[in-house]
């Protein structure tokens, strides 16, 4: 591989991490970021929200999806976008008002039950694993392309680097990582989109005309139905995308990091515009890649299409833009993975080890040690799984994490805040049913079993016909919550009144 590209890449990655480190140190001295707002303006906080929302996997994955499948790839962009409205209208405000940022903590505002903690921790760790695999596959493909080494060596290198970063770097100011990344990512997207449009003389219509003949799909490329021929698969994917975000632990954690309502609102506006623009621009990236890189080259670099965006950068912006885009994607993955490993590890160390095994009698040191071991375990496990997932599109892998979040976490979050009769039994049944029905159905789906050798993990007929099982597992999660609740006599109207009043008014005992 070109030495200038490698040097530029490393320089930009190091620079990004340095900016982040410097900004983080400054924030730390101005006060506690989470409780005091840390002097973050609404604008900055909006970028942090957007940064969390726009993972590099979706950047690499969606660009590839659109490049290879045209309109059907754009479904991902639309789904992730509308998901933001679900979070905004139904979940963000009550969560912020209850002063809880993790799912287990929020459910515990209403029920004190170890069983729920355990179930919530289990679903959190599973979601984290799927998300991790997606990021590692993306990063592995990137390093493979840049350095021209084997995929498995690339994944190992990236995986070890990430583990070291998490174990020694810790969580210092993931917010600033997200702000830095959001700005760089948007800048990269704008530059690429501008260059793509420039090549079409800023005529969007002629861009559409050009991609009509650019791929093997022909005119069908511009129509829905290239990838999703079966109506139920399409709708099922759309269900997972739109409902999943509201159940993702690391997104909810960050949604409102400023306490002041007015600042929070202005950050919502910034975040909406940033996220919306990002997903519109994915269209130019995808179309650009189809027109200027070509289907064959995209598939040759990575069978999942994950390298479409970096390859496009190289094709229209030369090695400098290629190095820049790769570095931004890589730095982003590093940051996202750090946050993911930590939320998985804290679910284990805090909820499982601290509260359940040690029954709350645990010193800070013991808990830290447990968190480190858990981080190590999460990293090793996801590296092992990522080695087998090379050929999958990362946006698809992310959509599976979304499916679990929508099936297991969302029902419990909504019921906890909005349903008076809801109880412990209902919460545990919804969490476990949602989680396991999603997992079991995926393990029987065409992405795991395929009659064509090499197309999936195993050779065989898929028992369940749809890749993303949300259309079945989400209703099952909601239904299990209702049945579990009604089968148990437990009912506490007083506790619900407290949760309801607090969730809606933002009143806190400590005020």
């Amino acid at each position, binding site marked *: 591989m070109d030495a200038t590209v490698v040097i530029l890449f490393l320089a930009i990655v190091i620079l990004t991490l340095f900016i982040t480190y410097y900004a983080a140190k400054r924030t730390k001295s101005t006060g506690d970021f989470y409780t005091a707002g840390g002097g973050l303006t609404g604008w900055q906080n909006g970028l942090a929200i957007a940064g969390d929302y726009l993972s590099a996997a979706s950047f690499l994955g969606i660009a590839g999806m659109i490049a290879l499948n045209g309109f059907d790839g754009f479904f991902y962009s639309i789904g992730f976008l509308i998901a933001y409205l679900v979070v905004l209208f139904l979940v963000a405000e009550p969560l912020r008002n209850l002063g809880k940022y993790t799912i287990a903590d929020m459910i515990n505002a209403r029920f004190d039950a170890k069983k729920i903690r355990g179930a919530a921790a289990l679903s959190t760790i599973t979601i984290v694993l799927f998300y991790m695999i997606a990021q590692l596959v993306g990063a592995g493909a990137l390093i493979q392309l840049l350095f021209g080494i084997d995929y498995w060596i690339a994944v190992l290198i990236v995986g070890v680097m990430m583990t070291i970063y998490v174990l020694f770097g810790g969580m210092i100011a993931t917010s600033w990582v997200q702000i830095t990344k959001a700005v760089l990512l948007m800048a990269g997207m704008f530059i690429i989109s501008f260059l793509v449009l420039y090549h079409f003389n800023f005529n969007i219509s002629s861009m559409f005309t050009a991609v009509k003949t650019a791929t093997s799909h022909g005119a069908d490329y511009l129509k829905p139905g290239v990838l999703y021929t079966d109506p139920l698969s399409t709708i099922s994917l759309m269900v997972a995308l739109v409902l999943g975000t509201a159940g993702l632990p690391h997104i909810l954690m960050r949604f409102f990091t400023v306490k002041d309502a007015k600042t929070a609102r202005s950050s919502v506006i910034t975040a909406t515009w940033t996220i919306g623009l990002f997903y519109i621009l994915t269209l130019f990236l995808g179309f650009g890649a189809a027109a200027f890189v070509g289907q064959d080259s995209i598939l040759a670099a990575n069978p999942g299409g994950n390298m479409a965006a970096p390859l496009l950068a190289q094709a229209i912006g030369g090695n400098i833009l290629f190095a820049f885009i790769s570095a931004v994607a890589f730095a982003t993955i590093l940051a996202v993975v750090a946050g993911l490993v930590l939320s998985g590890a804290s679910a284990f160390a805090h909820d499982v080890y601290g509260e359940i095994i040690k029954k709350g009698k645990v010193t800070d040191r013991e808990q830290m040690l447990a968190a480190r071991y858990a981080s190590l375990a999460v990293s090793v496990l996801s590296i092992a799984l990522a080695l087998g997932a090379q050929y999958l599109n990362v946006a698809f892998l992310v959509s599976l994490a979304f499916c679990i979040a929508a099936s297991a976490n969302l029902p419990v979050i909504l019921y906890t805040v909005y349903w008076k009769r809801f109880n412990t039994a209902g919460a545990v049944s919804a969490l476990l049913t949602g989680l396991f029905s999603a997992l079991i159905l995926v393990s029987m789906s065409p992405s795991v079993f395929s009659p064509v050798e090499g197309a999936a993990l195993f050779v065989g007929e898929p028992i369940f016909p749809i890749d993303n099982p949300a259309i079945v597992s989400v209703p099952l999660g909601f239904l299990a919550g209702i049945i579990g609740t009604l089968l148990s006599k437990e009912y506490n109207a007083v506790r619900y009144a407290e949760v309801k*009043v607090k969730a809606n*008014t933002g009143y806190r005992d400590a005020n």
Partner: protein
Amino acid sequence: MSTQPVTVTRKQKEPIDFVKVEESRQFKNFMHAKKKFIVPMTIFFLVFYFTLPILTSYTTFLNTSFFGDISWVWVFALSQFIMTWVLSTIYVKRANRFDEMAEEIVKDQLDEGGNR
């Protein structure tokens, strides 16, 4: 929205009776106003969203041309973005009003009846 003071005065240090707050007219009005906004809005954007995959799965009329090679399905897709921007702007405007109502409840009831 009435801002009448709470009728019950509690002793200091006594825990807040959240059931009473929940059943108060003031809180009920607040919840009603919130529901009247959030429920129809949520139904609207979910229906609008799912209309896209349903139409593309079961019909083909969105494939007709809007302008040159740009078909109506792209226009519909773009309208989802516009809807998101419009709805979140409306939400922020409304939420500022709901904040005022919530503050009144905190001031009139919770701060009066709590241990603070």
